[in-house]
């Protein structure tokens, strides 16, 4: 996939270059679906929001001035489309609530820490063991990738969306918060819970050979 600069892509779209459109769809579509899921619940509604977004992008392409990135512009169109549909359906925004807190402390069970009567309450009794293998090392990379992909896929929707936008797509915290219509603080809570679960999955994977997870 050729990632041409925004200006070249927009120029090609204006000329009616179908291959350029196919590339942009390939690049943005999964991300748009993820964000749309923050506003509407059913798969059908998500499909409608994203399709309407692409139509609005094409209709508005002559007005794109390049003051923001193409991605930011497309996402802002999606958020408008999704918000108006969510209002029509009188839905509450699914990501607005953080959901129930997870058990333990970021994936570490409460028994890992001293209780209130301990000498140092809240300090480790059973600290984590450092990973001896580097999960990014090439020998492990393929296997690690599928462990992480499965862990991410198993996350609750809102956590999956936030960790994907932040850690896979490389968005900043403020960008994610704005696109999902949540506060930056809640964005970080969702991200922390998501990373905690992926860390736990990596830990189980990396320490499997040693007979125990740390």
């Amino acid at each position, binding site marked *: 996939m050729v990632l041409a600069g925004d200006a070249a892509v927009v120029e090609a779209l204006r000329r009616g270059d179908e291959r350029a459109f196919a590339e942009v769809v*390939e690049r943005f579509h999964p991300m748009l679906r993820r964000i749309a899921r923050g506003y509407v619940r059913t798969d059908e509604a998500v499909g409608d929001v994203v399709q309407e977004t*692409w*139509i609005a992008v094409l209709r508005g392409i002559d007005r794109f001035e390049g003051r923001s990135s193409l991605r930011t512009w497309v996402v802002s169109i999606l958020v408008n489309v999704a918000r108006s549909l969510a209002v029509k359906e009188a839905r509450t925004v699914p990501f607005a609530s953080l959901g129930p807190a997870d058990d333990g402390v*970021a994936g570490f069970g409460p028994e890992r820490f001293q209780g209130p009567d301990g000498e140092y309450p*809240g300090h480790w009794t059973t600290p*984590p063991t450092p990973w001896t293998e580097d999960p990014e090392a090439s020998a492990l990379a393929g296997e690690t*990738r599928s462990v992480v992909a499965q862990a991410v896929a198993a996350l609750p929707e809102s956590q999956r969306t936030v960790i994907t936008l932040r850690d896979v797509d490389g968005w900043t915290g403020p960008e994610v918060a704005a696109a999902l219509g949540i506060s930056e603080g809640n964005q970080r809570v969702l991200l922390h819970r998501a990373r905690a679960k992926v860390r736990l999955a990596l830990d189980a994977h990396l320490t499997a050979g040693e007979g125990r997870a740390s």
Partner: protein
Amino acid sequence: MTQDVPADDDLPCTQVVMLITDYLDDALAPADRDRIDEHLADCDGCTVVLDQFRTTVRTTGMLQTEDLDRLDPGTRDDLLGVFRRWAAERPGA
């Protein structure tokens, strides 16, 4: 404003672990960040957690969008149809 944090001011590990993402995002007040830095200097367990979160972030970054979400061919064809109709109706097309 100076904040005098005594050396024995006990920040529990549970709290440090819950603040790791805020710490990595640099979203903490400078005084809180300093307290965590001081804690990390003395606490091997929390330092391991910080390292593992950093590694987790980098490892998640190895994923590609297509590991998580695939564009199905039907949707792709529908959208190319949308594009063709749009291009055909464009003034000067």
